[in-house]
């Protein structure tokens, strides 16, 4: 979990960036496996720094389901309480693929723009 300095002027910008990426990152985490909420959270923790509060992931999952990108079912577990598993629908797979292509191009272009700034800072 990443904590940001509340007084930082870039904090709002960072929040917006995180919000924008979260949907793709959640869809991407479901690309190979059927996962339940905490599984998804663990993957986000390991692979991204996008989440501020863990609880935000659940409403987003709800919205993605309403939009038809994912589906869900309750599965009984050994843990003693049921887990709600999510997986990508066919439409969700297509959406994840489209978003990924866009994201990849987008990131490469931004990167080429900001490289000179980073290179100068290193010197």
């Amino acid at each position, binding site marked *: *979990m990443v904590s940001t300095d509340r007084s930082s002027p870039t904090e709002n910008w960072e*929040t917006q960036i*995180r*919000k924008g990426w*979260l949907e793709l990152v959640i869809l991407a985490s479901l690309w190979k496996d059927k996962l*339940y*909420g*905490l599984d998804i959270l663990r993957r986000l923790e390991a692979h991204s720094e*996008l*989440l*501020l*509060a*863990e*609880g*935000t992931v*659940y*409403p*987003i999952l*709800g*919205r993605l389901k*309403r939009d038809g990108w994912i589906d869900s079912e*309750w599965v009984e577990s050994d*843990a*003693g*309480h*049921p*887990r*709600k598993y999510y997986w990508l629908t066919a439409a969700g797979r297509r959406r994840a693929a489209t978003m990924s292509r866009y994201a990849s191009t987008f990131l490469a272009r931004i990167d080429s723009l900001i490289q000179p700034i980073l290179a100068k800072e290193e010197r």
Partner: protein
Amino acid sequence: MSHEEKVQQKIDSYLTQLRRSLGELPPDEVSEILKEIRGHILERAEASGELTEERLVAILKALGSPEQIAPLYQTDALVAQARASLSPRVVMRGIHRWSTISAWGFGLFVLGVVGYATGSALALAGLLKIFSPARIGAWVGPHAIFDIGVNSDPAARDVLGWWLVPVGLIGGAVLFLVTTRVLRWTLRFARIRRPTTA
């Protein structure tokens, strides 16, 4: 109070607070949400070995407060519900939610109020015409240009007569339907996302 009871009480109070904050959602949706969040807390707790009160506080803090999470469900769900509903109450509730964050939403809220109020007034005039035919009408007079309702100008002429009954009732109903349809259609453009937190 034992340690376990204290911890259990803390979890319960968190979930109660979340339930209260989710108040406006359909009950089955609320219980589904609570079941999922409860599972999250319990599983995090199990993973931490011995569950101390401090550990639970940290779990709940990482999860975010009920006040922080609940609106994220509500904004989306209310609008989604309104998009699919033909009930003016449900549609207006969704529009109202939208109106709190966008000027577009606010404009549509006003449009909705005007549409439903005019529809009701028309239907009411049609209905009252049956009971008080002399006083209720669609009046055209030298002073008021056009006025549906109770007449106070003796020079005015009732242009619709008994036709006001079907015109008022059907016109009012049509206006109700059209308003609902238009508002619902516009709701598809409502881009209501998580308010401030990510």
